[in-house]
């Protein structure tokens, strides 16, 4: 488990004390145990691979390479296939995320109500382009297509919480409370 060990160290450096992430306590063992638990809950079926990866990501916020390798071995699914799935579906990420995740909806309703200008304003405020993570790991910012709250357009989700009726003049203020 040297792989898992090194991944953990990197994550610990990048995401110190991140809430919601069950940091492996010692060695890579509990990391492996968590993966095993996920595999068990899906009956170790290769057909459930998407659900398995979703659970792993819910736990880690992204898909660590070491754990993908472990899943590949355990389910006897080639790593290339896991990679294909992880890159095909938008929900999966292969790199760690910031402490706060901003998902700005750029669905059609939000688009016609000025989401692109809100996007520019957010990019100016946190000084990264959509798709990136700030160097201090404070924010990750991405655009997604349609949260299904078109009645309140434009909307964004910050750490799973909806912020509605955004405006490019005030969105900067709305982000100040996230440290």
């Amino acid at each position, binding site marked *: 488990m040297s792989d898992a060990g090194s991944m953990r160290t990197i994550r610990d450096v990048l995401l110190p004390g991140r809430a919601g992430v069950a940091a492996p306590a010692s060695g890579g063992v509990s990391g492996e145990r968590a993966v095993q638990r996920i595999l068990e809950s899906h009956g170790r*079926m*290769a*057909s*459930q*691979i*998407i*659900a398995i*990866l*979703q659970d792993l990501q819910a736990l880690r916020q992204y898909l660590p390479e070491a754990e993908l390798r472990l899943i590949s071995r355990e389910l006897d699914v080639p790593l290339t296939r896991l990679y*294909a*799935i992880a890159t*095909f*579906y*938008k*929900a*999966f990420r292969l790199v760690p995320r910031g402490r706060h995740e901003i998902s700005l909806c*750029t*669905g*059609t*309703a*939000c*688009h*016609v*109500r000025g989401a692109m*200008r809100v996007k*520019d*304003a957010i990019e*100016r405020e946190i000084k990264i382009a959509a798709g990136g993570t700030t160097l201090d790991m404070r924010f990750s910012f991405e655009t*997604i*297509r*349609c*949260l*299904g*709250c*078109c*009645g*309140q*357009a434009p*909307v964004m989700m910050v750490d*799973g919480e*909806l*912020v*509605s009726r955004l405006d*490019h*003049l005030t969105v900067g203020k709305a982000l100040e409370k996230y440290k």
Partner: protein
Amino acid sequence: MCTDTGCRACDSANVYEAFKREIARERLRRVDVKATGCHGFCEKGALVVIHPRTILYTQVKPLDVPEIVAKTIKKGELVERLLYLDPATGKRVELEGEVPYYRRQMRLILGNNSKIDPADIRDYLALDGYEALRRVLESRKPRGVIDTIRKSGLRGRGGGGFPTGIKWETARKAKGRKRFVICNADEGDPGAFMDRSICEGNPHSVIEGIIIGAYAVGAHEGFIYVRNEYPLAVEALTTALAQARECGLLGSDILGSGFSFDISISRGGGAFVCGESTALMASLEGKPGEPRAKYVHTVKKGLWEQPTVLNNVETWANVPKIILGGPAWYTKIGTGDVSGSPWGGSKGTKIFSLVGKVVNTGLVEVPMGMTLREIIFDIGGGVPKGKRFKAVQTGGPSGGCLPESLLDLPVDFDALTGAGSMMGSGGMIVMDEDTCMVDVAKYFIDFLKDESCGKCLPCREGLRALLEILSRIVEGRGKKGDIRLLEEISEGVAATSLCALGGSAPNPVLTTIRYFRDEYEAHIRRKQCPAGVCKPLLHFSVIPEHCTGCRACFKVCPASCITGKAKEIHVIDETKCIRCGACFDACRFEAIAR
């Protein structure tokens, strides 16, 4: 009261808590607070309806709650300021059903959303829930159920509009070891959220429909494929499935009929193409969601090569209604054969998500055949801020933009297709004079380019080429002949792609060229964006005659490119201007030109 995703964004969770607290404090034993699904009038969230009189309070805040409890609930008095204000008459409207937004609708599917708590099966049972299933299992042969659905003229609400009865019949006749039914809740169209609202607000209506369908085609296993972006829908469906199982409505020997069936939930991974039937099935099998050629339809060889019936959430929710009301009742709603369609018109109601530049945003359920004008102006209240209506986009990214001249078109599967757009899953996005149609076309192609699975070349590379040309046009580098080139590539992509994503992908480009060619020409020839959207074509400057020197623009400019003292005319340094438009919006004297 509504506690759906949309109203949650309006703090409805806290309003709900406030009600519970207040009612407990006042010891009102005969008052029950229900957290329901979407009522549909999202513009005015958070919504509270007080039964039995159905008094509707809009835009309720937690601080309003003690007053509502003290006045309305205890004394029966109204809280005037929370009632809906009808902009047409300037009067307050008291009851939910009297609000013009609701009055013109026909809420067959959505109606119960405001009455039931989705987390409590007893609420659904109290409103004839699972009665259709009981009748079917007690006294109907599968054949008879299929006949009923076929006679009702129900067509697939996911966009295709294929007759549901024929689909079921084919699947029943097809040979296979097993049969499957699937509910497609992968509502990928941006700007559409009716499926989410049904799943969150009335999950049992969908589940009942699926069980009836499974019985009709002889399936024992079913799946609901839900978008990953809809966590509340997953939660509501999971709870509902568990309750149905507990009540003996799922599992083995349902209601003592000998028929066994169960449903499991699969979460999607955020891929638009997975709304396509073969891609969805690939995804259910744990593969990347790439569509396959449908020489053999999925009703014959679908999931794991077995006969599979896949229907959309709204289609399934229609099934119990049809069983209870009978096909004769159902066919009275909707259009007859208006355009020589092989399927004889569009029956029943359709839910639209009416969003964008419209006064009353939200979910609208109307009988098929209502005109776009009635939906947008009579129900939707028209375009806000006195702006002029420009277009309505129906059918999601695969649909098209229809201009004002087509507003009297009835909404019907075939009429919309005839106009170059489509019904799609029911997104209806209203655009006003401030929306640039070239930008909209670019927006959809950009979306589809990202979502193309990449399997077929025409879709993968064709969309990329379209995007390149559109980007060129909106950046002021459009060339003569670009419009022709767009049309040519569009035709190629549509004709040679495997699945519906590629086949309909050029629709936004083709319809905007067809109906708004002058905007393309303004961008290409005059290098102007008439709507003032395309940034590279904008030039902000101060109109000296209008400027009062109020400093409003100076304060908001993020690039600090505006100079000028108080009460003096301001100047924009165009070399530093990032064209964000903040000054234009901040100015109250129309002193900024763009």
